[in-house]
């Protein structure tokens, strides 16, 4: 490529033309909505009547008068702060098991991955049944081995752990990516570590973790994003406890996650301006968290 940088000519025109579908798409479905939702967030807007400008009222109501806003934010932060590390740790452990050199691994790998292709609605309904306090499989097993059997989705203290549990069942994706990362770690590194007298834990600490850090970083970023748009499972698992989507998020709003409350405001209460303010806050929170994660990513081993 001998073309001078910064020149605009025929190749640029052709390049932009091929990229046109996405350029149009990101403008209509990305940039315009971000700008537009900022304007709407400053309006009272119920979609039937045109938006009426009210300044920062939506934001001040959110911050000072709406306990559900803080509740939903807390619920999402809870699931990210406690659920995500558990799920990542579980996926990594599973990947290490699946990386062992034994016969029949492909069967184990398939079984681990399979839950992730199940439609989210089916997963959610299945787990409502498994977590059923009286007749569900999980509590039957817990009672059988003499452990307490909590109410799971009907008990505010156990509902979020229940969601995390369902999340663990779907970590096959993450595990497969970890596994691919593990397979790329050169065997020579482990052999060298063994020669130096490193035990299994030391090998994990000084070989596996650093070599895997780019993959851990990727899964962490995807996990954070996934957590801030977590919707379908919780909607299906809790809707209908009292009046369709309006009842979703129970009991006692303990599973009212941020995207769910945003959805309810926009499409059930038709407070589109209010929902737009929530969308913008979500945008800022995700941006700040990701900036922080990328800033503090010095632990990620760059090799390529």
């Amino acid at each position, binding site marked *: 490529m001998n073309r001078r940088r910064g020149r605009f000519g025929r190749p640029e025109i052709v390049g932009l033309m091929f990229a046109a579908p996405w350029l149009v798409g990101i403008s209509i479905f990305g940039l315009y*909505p971000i700008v537009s939702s900022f304007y709407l967030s400053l309006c009272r807007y119920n979609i039937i009547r045109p938006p009426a400008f009210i300044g920062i009222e939506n934001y001040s109501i959110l911050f000072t008068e709406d306990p559900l806003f803080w509740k939903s934010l807390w619920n999402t932060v809870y699931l990210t702060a406690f659920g995500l590390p558990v799920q990542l740790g579980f996926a990594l452990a599973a990947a290490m098991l699946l990386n062992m050199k034994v016969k029949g691994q492909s069967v184990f790998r398939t079984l681990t991955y399979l839950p992730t292709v199940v439609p989210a609605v089916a997963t959610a309904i299945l787990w409502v049944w498994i977590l059923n306090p009286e007749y569900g499989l999980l509590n039957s097993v817990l009672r059988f081995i003499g452990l307490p059997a909590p109410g799971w989705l009907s008990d505010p203290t156990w509902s979020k752990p229940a969601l995390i549990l369902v999340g663990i069942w779907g970590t096959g994706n993450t595990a497969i990516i970890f596994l691919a990362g593990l397979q790329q770690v050169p065997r020579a590194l482990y052999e060298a570590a063994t020669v130096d007298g490193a035990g299994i834990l030391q090998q994990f600490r000084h070989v596996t973790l650093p070599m895997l850090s780019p993959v851990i970083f990727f899964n962490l970023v995807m996990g954070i994003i996934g957590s801030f748009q977590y919707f379908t499972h919780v909607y299906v698992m809790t809707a209908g406890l009292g009046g369709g989507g309006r009842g979703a998020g129970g009991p006692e709003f303990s599973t009212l996650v941020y995207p769910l409350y945003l959805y309810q405001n926009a499409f059930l209460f038709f407070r589109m301006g209010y929902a737009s303010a929530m969308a913008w806050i979500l945008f800022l929170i995700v941006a700040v968290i990701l900036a922080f994660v990328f800033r503090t990513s010095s632990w990620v081993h760059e090799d390529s």
Partner: protein
Amino acid sequence: MERFAFLRPFRHVPAYVLLSILAGCFAVPFIWMLSSSLKDTGQIFQFPPTIFPNPVIWDNYQKAVNFIPFLRYLGNTLIICTGAIIGNVLSASLVAYSLGVLRWNGRDHLFKILIASMLLPPQVTMVPVFVIFRSLGMIDTYWPLILPSFFGAPFFIFLLRQFFLGIPQELTEAARIDGCSEFGIYWRVVVPLSVPALATVVLFSFIWTWTDFLTPLIYLQDQNKFTLSLGLQQFQESNRAEWGMLMAAATLITLPIIALFFAAQKTFIEGIVTTGLKG
């Protein structure tokens, strides 16, 4: 060491025990779903629960198909899936050609924006996008579920670009010297060489459309237009205790995806791994 040589045949036993526990944890919910779908009400609420239904009841499937109505929703879902697949394959391959094969100033900046746009939660843009489709009179139609695919989904563009980068430049150069237009190179050289990657796009856009719940929930109102995911959820909302029927319906909506997974396991795993490792 030698003293324990007789243990050598058993050295993999701990590994198998751990792997079996792991695989068991993932498999049991499936077995439970299948088993519950074949039980009548009496067996469902029996304590302690049994894994093998006795007798095996097939009624739940018949009831689920009739009540949901399964075939209608299957047809609706397939229409939307077809539209989304066509859109994703066409648009993502064009954009990936620009970002992976063509060489032009600004290309790499655009690629970075593409990656960044993948990090945007859809909830941020949900309200204005709804307003757009409403002003176009497209609420309660399939357009909001299909049209966005024609504007290049970043994940698919990324996937195809990674693949296109691996196509030897000599091939595209040769075609260019022979006087082939850029579109001709795209259509006659790059696309035929990329069938495996395009298959990945087809596969994932089928599954994501099949599985999608939020978009149909927002845009579809008429029950006759529902997709399987939305229909199943609505059915569950009004029949919360019909576990046998619900599990039968959940099995039915899951089976096609699982069949597809086994038919195209390699394509699947490679798609997942590409995003994680080459990103």
